Structure formats: structure tokens, C-alpha cells
């Protein structure tokens, strides 16, 4: 059967979810293989090297760089406290001395004869990595972190903002075509992850921020509203470090677009359950999509139910159109002609014939996305 490879977004009822939880620098792993994990469990920790202060000793003391060594009161590797004398001139008959004090607590890292500078490094900054999702330690990566394994429902969004958040899912919109409005968001939703339908306005998102909702999953959001949220025009889709109370995960795209039926019903099925979400998105080589992970209690962590490798588009596949015209519509592939077809734009492309709402339409294969269910 003819098929084409179009990466789709995953909507999986039950899968073996694996995630690397890795330190930015080498450090200590605090858990063992097989250990049970809560989302809050600290799995690894390390210390990042502290900030560096460069002291222009020769300039401050008004001496030659090569004479700095004689004026020094400290040695390389020595610990110093804020206010400690780093270097001092001998003055005239012991009077009129001038000196340089350490501006911070830290360690003298290096002393340069050629520029007369002394480098003081501040105390290390501790960094911890938590488990993010409840599950088990599948594998320990020595000195770096772990791979976590969990039985979970797993959904990918198309675009998101803000990093990892946790909370209980709460269904707010009653259907995938319904907008999630500001009026529906109330103070008791603090810490929850709200499930919307087709659209979220800027006002509604601001309301969610103000009542400290943990996250929102919704079909569409306006591109131009992002500027009001982020404070800048989003030029390249690389997000995740925004300091926002409420993570936003858009499942379909920009504009008002009904959430796909599969995504909506899976979220609805899990209403009330705890979930972990991450809005971080990187759309470039090595794409990262935002995700919603809902751990499933009591399931066996066996490999048999692991999701299979994504397949390409085939006859009978459920697909979604991802560019106008017909943007956002879902249909079934009826045939995949092998010859190139001329579109209205005169572009010659390989197409798929799709049945949308009872009508057969030709759409470029590049403008289709698999809707992966089980």
C-alpha cells in the first residue's frame, strides 16, 4: 500500500513514557534503578560553578601588572570573604596605603601577570533535578541523572509556553468546539490544569495567570496575543524558559481551531487525575513539542504495551489538514496517488485524496498530519 511519512502529534491512551532527567553539569545521582518516584522526588543534584568577579588590581592600585604579585595578600586557590584585602601597596613609610578588597565571598581562581587582574569565583550554585512525573527509575546515567519510566497517557501539543508544571486536570469546556472564556475561570481553579476547546482569548489567559492556574490545554490561541504575554514578538518558536505561573499548551495551532476529537476525549476521560505538563517547544532540527503526561495507576510497567513506531500516512489513516484552505479539518485518506498533481498555486506536489465531511478533496501530503491514536 502506498504510504508517506508525515510526523504526527502523539495522542496515546496508554504508553510507556520514558524521560531523561539530566543535570546540566555532572553531579550526583540520588536514586537507584527501580526506585519509585513521585513528581517531587529529587533524582540528582550538582553545583554549578559560581559567578566570576574580575578585579583590575593593577588599575585600582595604579601599579604595573607585573608588580601585582608583590602587592598580593592572597594566593591562588585561597578562600576569601567579602571585604578581605586582596592586594595592598606598601605606601610611603607604611602610610598612604591603597588596597583592593574582595567584593564577594569566594575563592581566588587566578592571578594574571600580564593584565594585572585577579579572578575571584563566588560559591557554587546548587542545582537539583526532580522526577517531574511519578514512575520508576528505569536506568541510572552515572553522574548525570536518570531515565524515568512510567505508565501513562501521553499527548503532544503543537506549541506551548512556560516550562514544567503539575496539577489535577479539570475539564472546563464541554466540547472541543467551545471557547474557554475568562468568565469560566474562577479562583478555586488555582493549581489546576484546565482543559478547553477551540480557543483561548488573551483576557482568559490573563485571568488564569491572576488566579494562578497551573496550566491550560486548548485548541487555538492568537499569534498576535503572544506579544502581550511574552513582551516581545515571537520570531522563532523556541520556548520553555518563560517565567509564567500558567503554562499554555496549544494542541492545533494559531487562531480558533476545534481541539481534535481524540485529544479532547482522552483529556476528558482523565478529568480530575494528576498530570504533569511542559510547554517547552523547539521547532527546528531536533524538534521538541509541548506535552501532557497523565500517569496511570496500578498498570504494569511492561514493555509489551509500549507504543509502536510511528507509521506513515496510509489509505484509511485519519489525518488533519495543517494549512489553509481546509485548515484544521480532519478526514480519512481514501487514496494516495503516486503521480505529482498541480495545485491552484501551480505548485506540483504529491497529494493525498481525503474524505472530509463526505467530500473527497486533494491535499498536498506535506499539508497533512497523522492523528495518531492507539
Amino acid at each position, binding site marked *: 500500500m502506498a504510504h508517506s511519512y508525515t510526523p504526527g502529534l502523539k495522542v496515546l491512551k496508554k504508553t510507556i513514557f520514558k524521560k531523561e532527567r539530566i543535570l546540566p553539569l555532572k553531579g550526583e545521582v540520588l536514586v537507584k534503578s527501580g526506585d519509585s518516584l513521585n513528581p517531587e522526588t529529587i533524582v540528582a543534584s550538582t553545583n554549578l*560553578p559560581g*559567578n*566570576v*568577579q*574580575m578585579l583590575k588590581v593593577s588599575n585600582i592600585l595604579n601599579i604595573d*601588572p607585573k608588580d601585582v604579585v608583590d602587592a598580593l595578600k592572597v594566593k591562588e586557590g585561597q578562600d576569601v570573604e567579602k571585604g578581605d584585602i586582596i592586594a595592598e601597596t606598601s605606601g610611603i613609610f607604611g602610610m598612604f596605603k591603597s588596597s583592593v578588597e574582595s567584593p564577594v565571598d569566594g575563592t581566588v*581562581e*587566578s592571578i*594574571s601577570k*600580564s*593584565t594585572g*587582574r585577579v*579572578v575571584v*569565583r563566588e560559591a557554587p550554585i546548587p542545582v537539583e533535578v526532580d522526577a517531574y512525573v511519578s514512575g520508576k527509575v528505569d536506568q541510572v546515567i552515572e553522574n548525570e541523572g536518570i531515565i524515568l519510566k512510567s505508565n501513562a497517557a501521553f499527548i503532544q501539543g*503543537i*506549541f506551548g509556553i512556560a516550562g514544567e508544571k503539575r496539577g489535577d486536570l479539570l475539564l472546563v469546556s464541554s466540547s472541543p468546539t467551545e471557547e474557554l472564556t475568562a468568565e469560566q475561570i474562577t479562583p478555586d481553579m488555582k493549581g489546576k490544569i484546565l482543559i478547553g476547546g477551540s480557543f483561548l482569548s488573551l483576557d482568559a489567559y490573563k485571568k488564569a495567570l491572576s488566579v494562578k492556574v497551573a496550566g491550560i490545554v486548548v485548541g487555538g490561541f*492568537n*499569534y*498576535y496575543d503572544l506579544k502581550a504575554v511574552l513582551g516581545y*514578538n*515571537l*520570531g*522563532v*518558536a523556541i520556548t520553555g524558559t518563560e517565567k509564567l505561573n500558567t503554562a499554555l499548551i496549544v494542541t492545533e*495551532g*494559531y*487562531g480558533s481551531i476545534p481541539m481534535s476529537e481524540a485529544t479532547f476525549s482522552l483529556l476528558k476521560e482523565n478529568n480530575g487525575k494528576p498530570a504533569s505538563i511542559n510547554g517547552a*517547544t523547539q*521547532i*527546528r*532540527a*531536533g524538534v521538541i513539542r509541548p506535552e501532557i503526561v497523565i500517569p496511570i495507576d496500578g498498570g504494569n510497567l511492561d514493555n509489551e504495551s509500549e507504543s509502536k513506531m510511528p507509521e506513515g500516512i496510509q489509505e484509511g489513516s485519519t489525518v488533519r489538514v*495543517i*494549512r*489553509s*484552505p481546509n*485548515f484544521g479539518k480532519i478526514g480519512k485518506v481514501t487514496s494516495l496517488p503516486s503521480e505529482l498533481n498541480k*495545485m*491552484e*498555486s*501551480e*505548485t*506540483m*506536489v504529491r497529494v493525498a485524496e481525503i474524505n472530509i465531511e463526505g467530500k473527497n478533496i486533494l*491535499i*498536498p501530503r*506535506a*499539508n497533512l*498530519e497523522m492523528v495518531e491514536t492507539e
Partner: protein
Amino acid sequence: MSKKIKSILATDCGSTTTKAILIEWKEDRYRLTFRGEAPTTVEAPFEDVTKGVLNAVMEVEELSGRTILDGDKIITPDDGSKGVDIYVSTSSAGGGLQMMVAGVVKSMSGESAERAALGAGSIVMDVLASNDGRLPHEKITRIRQLRPDMILLSGGTDGGTTTHVMELAEILAAANPRPRLGQNYKLPVIYAGNNKAQDSIRETLGDISDLDIVDNIRPVLEKENLEPSRDKIHDLFMEHVMAQAPGYKKLMSWTDAPIMPTPGAVGSLIEMIAKKENISVVGVDIGGATTDIFSVFEGKFNRTVSANLGMSYSICNVLAESGLDNVLRWVPFDIDRSELTNRIGNKMIRPTTVPQSLEELVIEQAIAREALRLSFIQHKEFATSLKGVQSERTISDAFEQSSSGQSLVNMMDLDLLVGSGGVLSHAPRRQQSARMLIDAFMPEGITQLAVDSIFMMPQLGVLANIDKDELKEDASQAALEVFDNDCLIRLGTCITPVGNAKPNSKMADIKLTFNDGSVKELEVNEGSLEMIDHPYEEVKVSIVPARGIDVGAGKGETLDSVIYGGVVGLIFDGRNRPIALSKESDKRINSLLNWSQAVDEYPKGELF
């Protein structure tokens, strides 16, 4: 004539696709005979670049019926029925070569270092300079965050003061940066600064980095010496960066010449063409994330990368930088602004989609004009004569207000403009590519237009760079002949008289004499755009500009020359420079529709 090289296999491993071409000696010249492509296999699950190379070569085998592979080995030499004589490759997979450069003064040694790194084909992530306004700890944090593949450190003239360049070296040492790929090797650092500081540099950076010292990039203020740094970057790219990428060790053992970074190969080809033909050239490659521009003016080569101007991943950045109004001015119909921004946003998050409707195509090409225009502005600002140089000025220089640091790019001198990248190479009609190039680059006088439809320039560039004595001559002949015969699709020639002219007034009288002896005369009027169909053949042209108008010979001076047609033909552009569009919507749309019709840009129908 017997040739040492009868067949050449060349590949380019891009970040998404690996392209293979087969060049053969046929009927007394080298021709491109077959090409194939396959997805690049640098990332999981394959993690071996050679798999993609073999797949692309297998496609060439299938199409040509020639056996090239024996299992996963390339058969050499060519025995007449199977195998090839040489194999070469370029690569930009895995994000290409990412560098950080440092110089004492940002606009002097900093800029020279940037020019060397860009010329070698790398992406410059940041330029550190003593005077860049950042505090030492901010610079240190930046170096750590970016994790470049390589650092080029320059600064100071030979024998001059060493303090500033040593300060930079100390900052590097304090940052103790780790390379992006592979935890277990030291970061390559190239020092190309004041020779008096070399010993101190060794002392400061010798232990923490893999240090190489080359000749100063700016030995004296008046001279830029990029070659040693550029060559060293290429060597280190092979030795360190590529050797860390999955499968590259194997690939390196197959090739007959070092693997070059893709843009480095393209640049060197353009440089070679400009030198051989003694012409000025601008080349552009507009991709999904970035736009690369190469130019050779006055024999000087420059390359810039506009890292965040592209047609998919960076499409929203084009919108952010140019503004929606500048994009919409090229669109000859009204469209809801908020809906348009959502559509463009959706192209960013789903970058592989193609325009199905004509409306979508027109919008995409409007954005491309702006992406190209902005990239070219950046290029013009960077491609300058050396800054900080005191030069003796004659009275005429003083009148022209020329000074150090002036842009080398002179559109009236430009002879050849070459476009490549999806939106230019795959436009449904070649007229669209010609229009995008003209509207964005705004050539003046006589300029030949072309597109590299399958982006073969990287492979030809590496071929032109083979330096094994016994192969050198044939390889560079093959590169030039294939470039001339198969690589470029000649669109035609654009003739643009420039100067202050009243609306609709006559700017020039033109007389064309064709090969068959027939003659055609026409006028170019202000604000007009005209096209004559003519294939890639010689045409004699005589242009008599109106008073105050220049076509290349000076204001009001007649110009006689030979020009060439192409798949589009001869284009006569009477629009002012810069091209001005009316602020009134009706007038603007009317002009756009007239220009489109004049060159048969879009299919006739509801929109046109």
C-alpha cells in the same frame, strides 16, 4: 583528450536531506548526468551519516544503471562500466559549524574575525569584544551558555599592546567552555592576534583548550589576513567537530578531499567564478531558518548569515523585523491582518507545509521579498572596506564622501545575481523567482539573473577545492563546466536605468539587435516593468538614457553591451530605486497587478 578523472560522485549532507550528484566526462566536456537524494541520517534512530549517503548514491545507481557501490563501499576508480574516479562531500548536518569569535575592537579585529569565520562557512553565534559593553561575568556566562564548536580569538596589531587581547584570553579561561558535541575533548581555540602575545596566550589557554596559533588576522591596521584563520577553521572542522558527529569518521575515510562545511564550499565556488570571469557576483541561499548571502565586489569576498531570517522556522521573525505593513505592501489584495498573522504563525509551527492556494503562494512570496531585502541590508552593512584605516584622500574622494568602512556592495557594478533555496528554486513559475530577486535586491544597470535549482553549488565548490596535484586541474575544470552548463538556470537579464525621473517620464531608449539580425526598439518609462521573451542567447543592446539617468556608463551616457536572455527573458525595470509603492491601497494594488501581468507572474483568474 584523455582525462584523469572520467567520473565524479559528490554529496552534500544537509540537515534534512543528503543530495548526491554524478558528473561524467561526455563528448569533450564534464556534465551532470544523474542526481539522487535521501533523508539525512545523523539523528536517531540511525545516527550514522553514511546511511543517508549510501541511500542517495543508491538512487543515483538506480537512475544511471551504473554500479557505484560494492556493499557499503564506493568503488574506485572508474573502470569504464562501474565505479567512480573520485568522491567528495560537504556537510551542514547537525546544525553546521557553530563558532564564537572574539576581538579587541568590535568593528576592527572583531569584524575581521567574524569575516574569517563566516567565510569558512560557520555560523557566528556571538562576537565578543573588549568594547562590546558587556561586563566580564556577562561574557563568561554567554560563552558557557552558547557552547560553540570552536572559538577564534584575535586582537591587536603585531608588536602592539597585548593587554586587551590577554584580557579576552583570561575571560575565555575563566569560562572554561565545553564543546557542544562530545564531553571528552577540549574545545578548539584558534589564536590569530598580536604575535607578541603568543607565549602568554599559550600559558593562559594552552591547558584548558586545544590551542592553535596562526598568523595575525590584522597584522597591521591597513591589512586583513583571513586566509590562515580560514584554513585552520577548515582543518579543525574536520579533525574535531566532524569527527565527533555520528558516522563522519567513516565518511571522511571515503572521500578524496577534506569534507567542507556547505556554505564554505558555496562561497569558494562563487569566489572562483567571480575571479575567472572578472565579474561582481551576489549569491543568496534562503532556507527555512537562515538566509546566507555571498558577494564578490572589487575582488573581495564576503559572506553573511542572517540567522533568524528564513521561510519556515524563522518566518515569524521576518514578520517581526520587517513589520506586517512591509509584507502586505507586496500583496495585491486585501486580507484580514489578524488572520494573516495566525496563518504565518502556523507556518512557523508546521514548517514543512506547502502553499496549496494561489493566495497562500502570493503571501509566502511577499514574505520572501522582505526576508531577502532585510538579509541584503545586513550584508551591505557587513561587506565593507576595512574600518579604522587612515587613507590618503584625493579631492574627488572628498567629494564622494568615501571613507573607511564603506560598503563594497555597489548595485550598478553587479553583473550576476544567483538565487537558491526552496522559495526561489521551487517557485511554480520562474518569473516569480525573477520578480522576488529584483524586488528584494533592486539591481541597477545591467544585471544577469539566475537560480541554482537543485542547489548543486556546495558539491561543485568542494570539487573546485581539491588540491591533490594529479586531480586538481580536472576537478576544477569539471566544477566550472558543470556550473556553466548544468547548475544554473539562467532567468535572463534585468535592465534598470536609475536617477530622478518624473512619474511616467521616459528614462531610456533601448535598441536590441538579435542574432538573426532583427532589431527591436523600446522605451523604458518611470514606474513601468516590461518583459521580452528571449532564450539564453546573445543580444546586442544599445541604451541611451535620458538626462540625469544612468545605466552604468554614467549619467546621460550611452551604453553598448551584450546581454543574454533566459527562461524568463529580458526585463526592463523603470521603477525607482528604492522601489516605491503608493500609500494609497487602490493605487498600490493597481501597480502590483500591472507589474505581475507584464511578466506573466501568476495564473490569470480571480486574483490576477
